[in-house]
Every structure is written in structure tokens, then in C-alpha cells.
């Protein structure tokens, strides 16, 4: 083989094999990017952040009416039919506000959503540090062929073969297992004892960059005329009491970010004791058990219906003279 032949053959072999791989990946289209995504049902496979970020390009705008952003605390809330809207749960395990804002603004730029929900646990504002560098526009190219894609493809094949199911459903909801109720109360009490002291891990500090990301997300929702509904998820009552002052300060600091048209629901107020009093609603100090998540979804459903009805009525009132 001549050197010239070697070079041409090498270039041709690389081009051919890359072309075949890219063609196969485009045909599989695990992230709903390369063809009409409407009507498709895609699950999260492999790296969660990479997958949910790429869903915000086409899959979510073409299939869903509403989105919920948040951290792992809201990841198991079954949002599929909140207030009759097809809702996707974009919460991330260990997700912080900077990441949620990226997902939210990217989706808002590409679709017409009827509502944007934000589950605002104090953890999301404590730090602005993103867990990966996957939520950037360059990741779009990764959908043509990357390690993340092949990890996802492998997980997809295992799921299809029934060997290992994806931990997410088609609404982005993480399917956690439920701890047994007997040990649950002890775990929650332990968490409360740990976090109640000043040395406890829950600082309720607000990172300025994370707060700025929250403001940007709210601004994006206003810009796209999408109703913005934020809520602080319920904590066990004993934990609320142990951190009452810090929790109140946190809630009032966060509330200052919202405009008059936004809705902010604090599930740690006394009227929601029916959620926070019951240990069975929690996995530990922060995360909700599956029954707890279902109860919170029910409550959100009722509240959201009321909010949307009021907005609908107000919009109709405004539109009436024009007709």
C-alpha cells in the first residue's frame, strides 16, 4: 500500500464509519431531535441531564402543555395530568437553580406552554454549581454520536429487552421505591434532629448566582407570557419547627423574586399540615415518599385548576370589549 493510498483509505474509512454511525443514531433519534417528535413517547435513558436538556429542543415543545422544574425532591411527583394538562417533570437529581433555569428557558424559547411549575427546595438556591457540562447548545451535536448517546442506547436496549427498566416514566417522573413506614418515621426524626441545629447541613443560604438564575427564569416565563407557578415542597412538621426562622427568611427572600402575576405556594404553612404531619409522606427530611408525592400532586392539581380558571376568566374579561 502506498502512503497516498493509506491516507485516502483512512479518510474514506473514517468518513464511511462515522457516516453509518451518525445515520443509525439519527434513525434511532433517542432524544426526539431529528424528525417530527409529536406523538412520540420517549423516556430518559442514560445521563439524565443530557437527556432532559435535549428533550427541551423538540420533544417537550411538541408534546406537552406544561413543565415542572425542580430538584430530586420533586422528581417523583406524578405530574402527567395536572389540571388536565400534559405535564413533563424536568426535575433533576441534585438539580440546582442554574440548571433548572437552563432547561426552562430553552424549552420556553421553543414551545408554547400553558404553565411553568417550579418546585423550589432550598437546596436549589444553596449553590450555583452545575453537576455536569452537558446542558449547553453544543450537546445537540452529541446526539449524532457520543458516549452519552451510546450509554443511553445501551440502557434503551436493556429496557426494551425487559432486562433493566428505565427509572423514569414517559413524563420524566423518577420511579423511586418507597421505604417501609416503620423505619420511615425514625429516618425523618433523625433528619430533623440533624438539620435543626446550627451545625446542621441545611444552611438556607442563597447563592447570588442561583438567585439570579431564578430571576432569569421568571423573566423568561413573563417574556413568553407563560403563567409561572412556584412552590416550596412540604417538609416534615418537626423539621419545619426546628428550622422555622430560617425557613421563613428563606421563603420571604424567594418571594421577593416573583412578580404580581406569579403564584408562589408555600407548602410549609399551617394550612398544609395534613401533608407535613404524616411521616408516611416522606422518605427522610427532604424527599417525598410515593404516597406523599401523589398527595402533593393532587393538591397541585386542585390549586392549578383554580389558578388557570381565574386566569382564563381574567383573560376573557380583558378580551371581551375587543370583540
Amino acid at each position, binding site marked *: 500500500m*502506498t*502512503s*497516498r493510498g493509506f*491516507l485516502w*483509505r483512512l479518510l474514506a*474509512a473514517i468518513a464511511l464509519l462515522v457516516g453509518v454511525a451518525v445515520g443509525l443514531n439519527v434513525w434511532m433519534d433517542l432524544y426526539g431531535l431529528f424528525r417530527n417528535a409529536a406523538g412520540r413517547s420517549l423516556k430518559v435513558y442514560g445521563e439524565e441531564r443530557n437527556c432532559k436538556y435535549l428533550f427541551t429542543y423538540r420533544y417537550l415543545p411538541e408534546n406537552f402543555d406544561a413543565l415542572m422544574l425542580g430538584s430530586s425532591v420533586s422528581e417523583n411527583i406524578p405530574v402527567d395530568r395536572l389540571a388536565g394538562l400534559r405535564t413533563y417533570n424536568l426535575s433533576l437529581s441534585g438539580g440546582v437553580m442554574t440548571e433548572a433555569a437552563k432547561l426552562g428557558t430553552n424549552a420556553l424559547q421553543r414551545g408554547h406552554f400553558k404553565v411553568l411549575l417550579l418546585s423550589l427546595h432550598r437546596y436549589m438556591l444553596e449553590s450555583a454549581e452545575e453537576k455536569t457540562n452537558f446542558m449547553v447548545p453544543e450537546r445537540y451535536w452529541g446526539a449524532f*454520536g457520543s458516549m*452519552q448517546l451510546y*450509554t443511553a442506547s445501551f*440502557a434503551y436496549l436493556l429496557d426494551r429487552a425487559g432486562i433493566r427498566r428505565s427509572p423514569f416514566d414517559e413524563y420524566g417522573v423518577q420511579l423511586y421505591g418507597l421505604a417501609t413506614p416503620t423505619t420511615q418515621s425514625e429516618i425523618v426524626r433523625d433528619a430533623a434532629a440533624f438539620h435543626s441545629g446550627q451545625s446542621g447541613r441545611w444552611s438556607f443560604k442563597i447563592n447570588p448566582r442561583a438567585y439570579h438564575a431564578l430571576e432569569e427564569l421568571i423573566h423568561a416565563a413573563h417574556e413568553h407570557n407563560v403563567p409561572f407557578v412556584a412552590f416550596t415542597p412540604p417538609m416534615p412538621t418537626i423539621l419545619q419547627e426546628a428550622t422555622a426562622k430560617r425557613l421563613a427568611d428563606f421563603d420571604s427572600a424567594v418571594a421577593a423574586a416573583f412578580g404580581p402575576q406569579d403564584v408562589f405556594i408555600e407548602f410549609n404553612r399551617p394550612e398544609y399540615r395534613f401533608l407535613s404531619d404524616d411521616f408516611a409522606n416522606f422518605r427522610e427530611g427532604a424527599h417525598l415518599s410515593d404516597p406523599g408525592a401523589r398527595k402533593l400532586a393532587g393538591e397541585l392539581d386542585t390549586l392549578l385548576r383554580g389558578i388557570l380558571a381565574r386566569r382564563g376568566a381574567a383573560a376573557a374579561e380583558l378580551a371581551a370589549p375587543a370583540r
Partner: protein
Amino acid sequence: MQLNSFPYIFLFLPISIAGFFLAQRISVSLAKGWLLLSALVFYATQSPKYLPLLLGSILLNFFVSRAFRNAPDSRRVLLTGIIGNLVILCVFKYAHFLVDNCNLLLGTHFHIPAMSFPAGVSFFTIQQIMYLVDRSEGLVDHLNLFDHAIFVAFFPYVLMGPIVRAGQVMPQLAKSFAARWNTENASRAVFIFLIGLFKKVVLADTFGRWANLGFGYPDRLAFLDAWLAAIAFAFQLYFDFSGYCDMAVGSALLINVQLPQNFDAPFRAQGIIEFWRRWHITLTDFITTYLYTPMVRSFRKLTFWKAMMATLLAMTIAGLWHGAAWTYVVFGLLHGAALVLNNYVRRRKKVPSPLVSRIATGLFLIFAFVVFRAPDLARAGSILHSMVLPARLFDPSPYDVIDSTDRIVGAAWMLFGVVISVAGPSSTDLQTRFTPNRRMLAFATVTALFAILYMNSMVSLGFVYRDF
């Protein structure tokens, strides 16, 4: 734009090489101009605000080199040139280190504003010091400004070496301006570039991810985690820097310039003396020729222990050259002490068996690289403590964030990396053995596919030596 990025491989490199050969058909001056322009554009993509610094350094050394022509006392000119270069290094690399230590020692409160690091400053500065020394000894001719600028800013090595001497590279460049595109060199260049790319994006970055996680929690590491982090960093550094050097060699070979190899299977060394003959070979050349030899020559009567003192001092300076921190000074000192010990053992003719030598060398390197990588000496001490006197055997927490599939893939690559660096062929071997045949074609294709896949996976870390 790094050497392992899509813009460099698919845009910058083809355009600069094609432009060079097209310009060469018109005139040599145009080809030189094109090459210099490419080099400056490349540097500007890395460190745009320090482009004037690079140009200033080139001008300074050009004028010092010209001053040798008519100077009756070449030593004074050389000293002026060396001081000028050291001032540049001190201002842009060591200023914070010097001020912080001065404040600590004297209780002063001097403050200098934070500034970013000029890419490649350590490399292009010592390369020009070497040039001035060679000029003072009449080993190289004065280069005109155009040639001098090309010699310093040539894009394959301006950021991280290999550190070359003017006498090595300028005659080749002069020939290259007259030579045509050489397909034989080009196929070899592409082959060696692909090996380097694979080393960097697949192996070094995989090791790097594990090393970063471990070194991110220096106070919390259990025994096995500490060893994993330390070993991962040693191999990260090797694949990272040798990968870069292979890519630099490949890039330069496309225009028929053969740069020196910087690595020759260093983890096969049976002693620290041998290690430094195989690791960062061009730096070793600089230390030996331009630091150690002048020191030794300055002694009236040379004894073994005086030579060892010179070794220790030269290695400490080499350690400090890597970065402005006490960890690098201690790293240099450790290697200096190990060289002294190695020389002493050889002198006494009590050399242990090859296996024992290899294991002892490997263990020393792993420990020394912990000091090199740790953010400060205290945290280096914490990790070393966990490696030697562990409180716990294993605690998976630092590595929890790695997905289970990634763990399996990562572990497989790391095992592969360890095996080939200890027992496989080196880049030099592969380059020497290269002949265009089907086996090499298959090897190069697979290497390229993995490299492209990893490049598009956004897991790439910056080059470790970029900050030196």
C-alpha cells in the same frame, strides 16, 4: 482552540497546511508569512490578550541575539537577555507566589491584582533562553526577525513544547520552505497525530476524571480511594502530555518538520535516572545542558557530592519551572533527592533486581505526583497519609457521581492504559514501525473512531501542562 478540538483538526490545521504549500508555490517569503500568521492566530485563540507579550518576548530576544554580533563581552549580553526573560517569567508567572510569600515572611500587605496566565510563557521563555545561550557559544547563527518569530511561535509547540533548540528546528524549517508536500511524511504524521489524540481524549481524560474526583476530596479519602486517585493522576499526566506531544509532532511533520519525541515509555524505567531520560525528554535536555552542566563547570574541583548538590538544585529549579507553588518546589526536591540516591546506589554498585527497581521507581513516582497534583502541601500530606496510614479501607463517596456504565467503561480504559504504558509499544516505537499497510490502516481507523466519539462527548479536560 486546543489540539484535540474539532476546530483545530478540521479547520485550522488543514487550512494552515494547505495555505502553507500553496503560498510556497508562489514564494518562500509568502510561505513564511503564512506560517507566522497561522502561529499568531493559533496563539491568539488561546491567549488573545497575551499576544503582545509573545511578540514582546520575541522582539526582546531578537535584539539581544543581534547584540551578540558586535558585543566584545558576550557574557554581559547573555546575562542581560537571561535577566530580561526571567523578569517576564517572574511578572507573569511568579508574581503572586513571590508577593504572597513575602507577605507571609515579612508580615507585609502587598497586593497585586489577579491576572490570568499567559499560555505557553514557560515554554517560549526557556526556549529563547536556550537560543541565547547557544548564540553566546556560537552554536547557532543569528536569526532574522521573521525566522526568529517563526522559531518561537510555531503553533505545534508554542503552548506546551516539545522544547526545541533553534539548531534542531530551523534547518528543518529552512528545508521545509523549499520542500513539497510529502505524502509519506503526511501519512506518518496523521498516524502519530491520531495516536496522540486517542491518548488525550480517551485515556488521559478518563484517568483525569477519576483523579479529579479523588483530589477533589483530599481530606476524606480512604486507603483505596487515595491510591486510585494517585495512580489515576500519574497516568493522566503521562497520557495527557505525551498525547499532546504526539499531536504536536504529527502537526509539524505535515510540513516536513520532525520535532523531537518527548516521551519514551517512562513507566518502564528502572530508576529515576532512567525515568528522566524517558519523561519530558526535552526538559531533561534543558536541565542537563543549561542548568546542571554550567553549575558543575563552575566548581574548581568536582566531587561526587558537589555534582549531587548541583543535581538537587537543578531539579528544584525544574520543579519551580512547572508552577508557582511550594508543591512544585517539593516535587523538584523529591526528584532531586531520588536522583542523588539513584546515583549513590549505582556508585556503590548495589543495584537491585530490575523488578524491584521498577516497582520502587513506580511507587516513588506515584507518591511524588501526589505532591505535584495536590492544591497545597497540607492536602498532599492528607492524601499521602491516607495512602500509607489509612483510617478506612474504602469509601465510595468521591466516585458516587460516576454512572455505573461509565464506571465499567472507565475501568476498562484505565486498565488498557496501564497495560500499554507499562508493557505496550511507545509512540516512538509505533512511529518507527509505521509502514502504510492494512494492519496500520485498521489500527488508525479504530483509533480515530474512538477519538472522534470521545471528542464529541464533551468529557474533555484541559491539558494539564497548559497551566505551566
